[in-house]
Every structure is written in C-alpha cells, then in structure tokens.
C-alpha cells in the first residue's frame, strides 16, 4: 500500500515537473540550408530534448559550432526550428505570432558576448529603456534602475556612455539591463568571451547572485574554469546532440 502511494506520488511529481518546467525542448532539429548550391546543409541541432526548471542554473557547454547559440536563438525566436516544439511556460513558441514576439522577449533577459548596448544611451538609459519598453511607470523606473545598478556595482558609472566603460563594466550594464524588468529567465551567451579571467569571475558571481535571488539562469560558455567552479547542472552539446546532462557537471569534452 505504502509502495503504491509512493508510486503515485512519484507520478504526480513527474506530472508537476512537466507542468512546472519553464522551458521544454522537444526533439528540436535545426538545419541551416546552404547558401551555396550543392554544398551540404548544416545540421546545427539534431533531435535535442531537455527541460529547464524554474530557479535552475544551467550551463550549456560545447565547442563552437556545437549548437549553443542556435539553442538560445530558437528560444528568443530569432530563428525557427526545422522540426520539434519549444514550450515556454507551457506555451508553444510555434503558436506565437510576430505581434506577440515582444511579449516573449520581455520574459527573457539576454546577455551577449558583445554586450549589445545602445551606443547613444548612457548606462542608466540603457537599463531604463528596457523598462520603458514594457511600459513601466516613470516612478518605477526611477526606483528600480538605481537598484540594479547597485546590484551590478555600477552606481557611479550611471551617466557614462558604453564607449566610456571597460569591457567588464559594459557586461555588467548588460546584465543589469537583462535583470531590471524581472524576467523569468536570463540567457547569457558567452558573456565572458571578451573578458579577462578576473572580470570573468566577477560576471559569473553576479549571475550566481541573480540565480540566488530567484531567476533562472542559462549560461552558454566554453570556458572550462568557469564550469568546473560552478558545480551546477551542465548540459554538454556536441555536433548538435546532447551527449551529457549532469546535475553537478564538469567540463568534459
């Protein structure tokens, strides 16, 4: 009898997990057709399936070309999968019309290797812009932007343009921007790719802090030291396939 209830509990948990999964990749295949005729099309992702749960810290690991960036692009709907479904909070992305695209992107904060800050706006304005976009009130902007600037430790650089900031500082602005509208998830695509080891750890620590505050973080990287220090879930991609998915993974390729 006890066994049965346990089994039921397990099943129920399983179901809840499905319901709870923040992002669900189901048999995702992405093939880029070749622009030059006769040369082979590129298979970027080959039947990839995995779930990301709320408040997780997930690292995507793999050599360049393994499909990390493609995965993130699919999630942001910058690209469409050739086959398979992506569910975001239970909603199938293939059913999202282009008018709803901004809805999706507001739920996701993104950090890029090349920062992608608005060059004509100061650090403060870059962050405020994201809030303006989602229609936040002026008081909210005035309240929240200094807060995130404080979190990333850039309160004193608020009035500087991106060109006047160092690489690490720019990336911190980018993280603050990704953070300020309280997205459900933050995607970081090689956020430390342009930074020295010192600033790299600084950024990673910042991402950990964000996860502790309750936001899901997905980190795509090929930085071995970073992964080995994290001791968090690692999904390893190779040639478009998931070859390993470990709870406390290490960098093995």
């Amino acid at each position, binding site marked *: 009898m006890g066994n049965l209830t346990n089994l039921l509990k397990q099943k129920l948990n399983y179901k809840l997990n499905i319901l709870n999964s923040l992002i669900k990749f189901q048999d995702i295949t992405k093939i880029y057709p070749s622009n030059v005729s006769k040369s082979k099309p590129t298979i970027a992702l080959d039947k990839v399936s995995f779930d990301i749960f709320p408040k997780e810290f997930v690292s995507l690991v793999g050599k360049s070309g393994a499909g990390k960036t493609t995965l993130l692009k699919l999630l942001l709907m910058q690209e469409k999968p050739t086959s398979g479904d992506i569910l975001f909070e239970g909603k199938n992305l293939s059913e999202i019309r282009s008018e709803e695209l901004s809805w999706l992107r507001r739920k996701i904060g993104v950090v890029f290797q090349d920062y992608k800050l608005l060059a004509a706006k100061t650090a403060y304005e870059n962050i405020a812009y994201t809030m*303006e*976009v989602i229609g936040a009130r002026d008081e909210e902007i005035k309240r929240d932007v200094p807060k995130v600037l404080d979190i990333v430790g850039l309160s004193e650089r608020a009035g500087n343009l991106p060109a006047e900031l160092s690489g690490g500082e720019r990336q911190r602005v980018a993280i603050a921007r990704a953070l300020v509208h309280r997205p459900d998830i933050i995607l970081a695509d090689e956020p430390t790719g342009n930074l020295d080891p010192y600033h790299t750890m600084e950024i990673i620590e910042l991402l950990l802090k964000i996860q502790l505050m309750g936001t899901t973080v997905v980190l795509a990287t090929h930085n071995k030291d970073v992964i080995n220090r994290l001791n968090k879930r690692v999904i390893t991609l190779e040639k478009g396939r998931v070859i390993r998915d470990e709870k406390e993974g290490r960098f093995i390729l």
Partner: protein
Amino acid sequence: MFTVLIRIFRSGWRSFYRDREIALATIFVLFLSVILSGSFFLFKDISQILVADLQEKIDVSVYFKEETPEEDILGVGKELSELPEIKNIEYVSKKQALLNFIQRHERDTALLDSIDELGKNPFLASLNVRTWNPDQYAKVSKFLEGPGFDSFVEKIDYYQRKPAIDTMRSLNSGVTKISISIAVLLVTIAIAVSLNTIGLSIYNSRKEIEIQKLVGASSWFIRGPFLVQGMICGILAALISILTISLICWFLSPRIENFFLSISLFTLFIENFWMLVLIQFTTGISLGAVSSLVAIKKYLKD
C-alpha cells in the same frame, strides 16, 4: 498610452539632438525639397499674373464700314456680348478714334497736318473685343465673318494679330506644362534624395534597432522615435525655407517691380503667406515622416 507617446517623443528628440551632424544633413536635403515646393507655389502665381498681364494687352478690333449707323454697330456689340467667350467690348466711334490718334501723335505735326489736309475723318468706328482666353479670338472672328454681319464689317484685325495671339496662347499652356513637369521631376528627385539620406542615418542605427527588438520593444516603439526625428527635421527645414523665401522676396521685390508692372513680389508673398506656410510645413513634415517610415521598414522585418 500617454506615457508611451511622451517617451517616443522624448527619445526622438534626444536622438535628434545627439546625432546633430546627421540631422543637419537631413534638414538640408529636406530644406531643398521644401523650398522647391514653396517656390513652385509662388512661381505658379507669378507666371499666372504675368500671362494674365499680357493677355490684358491683347484684343481684336472690328472696323465698321464708313456709312454704318451707330445703332447698328451697337446692335452688333450687343449680339457679340451675348457670346459666352466675350470678356468685354468697347465701342470706339469715328470721332473717338480720331481723338485717340491725335492724342497719340501730339508731337508729330506733319502727321496731324496731313490729316487736316484730308478734310475729313479717315478713321472707322470700331468695337474692341476682349475674350477670356486667347484661343477664343478665332471663334469670335469667325462669328463676325458670318452672314448678316458682312454688310457692316469692313475688316477684322484678327489676322494681323494672329501671330501675337498664337504666341500668347502657346506661352499660356507652355508655361503651365513646363512648370508642372519640372516640378514633378524635381520633387521626385527630392523625395529620392531625402529617402536616401534618412535611409543612411537609419542604417547607422541598424544595430540599435536590432537590440531594441531583442529587448522586446514593439515595432511602433522602435519606429516612433525615428518618425519624430524625421518630423523635427521636416519642421526645421520648413522654417528655414520660409525664412529664405521671405528674405529673397524682400530683397528681390524692389528690383523686379521695375520690370513688371503689376507684380509686387513681396505683396504676393504676404498675400499667400499662410498658404505658403501650410504648404511648406506639410511638405516638410510628410516628407520627413514618410522617408523615415519607408527607410525603417526593412529593419523591422523579422
């Protein structure tokens, strides 16, 4: 909604202010188009006044035979005045014709003497006919050559004046045709150039547009500031253009008045001022806005 509008305007104004050099180029190009439209508007009036002026000077005279009684002549005049083409008719009697001639040649004593010697009034009574339009003279002269009139009419000087009337006529339609086609051509070029300039300045912002899309900005939230920027440039271009035109009119006016009798450039400018302002602002703003919309279109596609 209201905050969004304010943000769009603020952000448009800010990027206009920050990219002053690019904005300056845009304003200059828009200014050329705007001043073009303004000058065509004024030029159309000037040429119309000029043509009308010349038209005033053209008429056709019908001379009546020596012995035609005055009532008959006035009768013909009355019949003529019922034609829709006729603008006005002026009766010049034999006596009046002589007086006119004497007045015109006051100093030429030899000529006046010879008329004295003639012993009688050599002039014929006539009707001076003006039509609304130079190409209507042919019809009027046909009418007078018709049956019923040939017993009174000595001659119609239409044929002597035909070349002048024809020139007038072709000038009239020619001026309109040429100015319309030049206007169309120049305005097309102007639109192409402003599209290109604004397109270039938006091309500079293509990265920003992509980032804005990634952050989740809606299309109108991205488009809005560019639209505002284009319209600000249009407004400034219109202002500069109005200023330029008024300065030109003010400077040129006294010089031109000596050549043409009935035109004062400055009066014309003052009379049409509000229309001009309207045209300038409409052209400037719509050109700026439309160019921005067209130029940004391809960057907003997904």
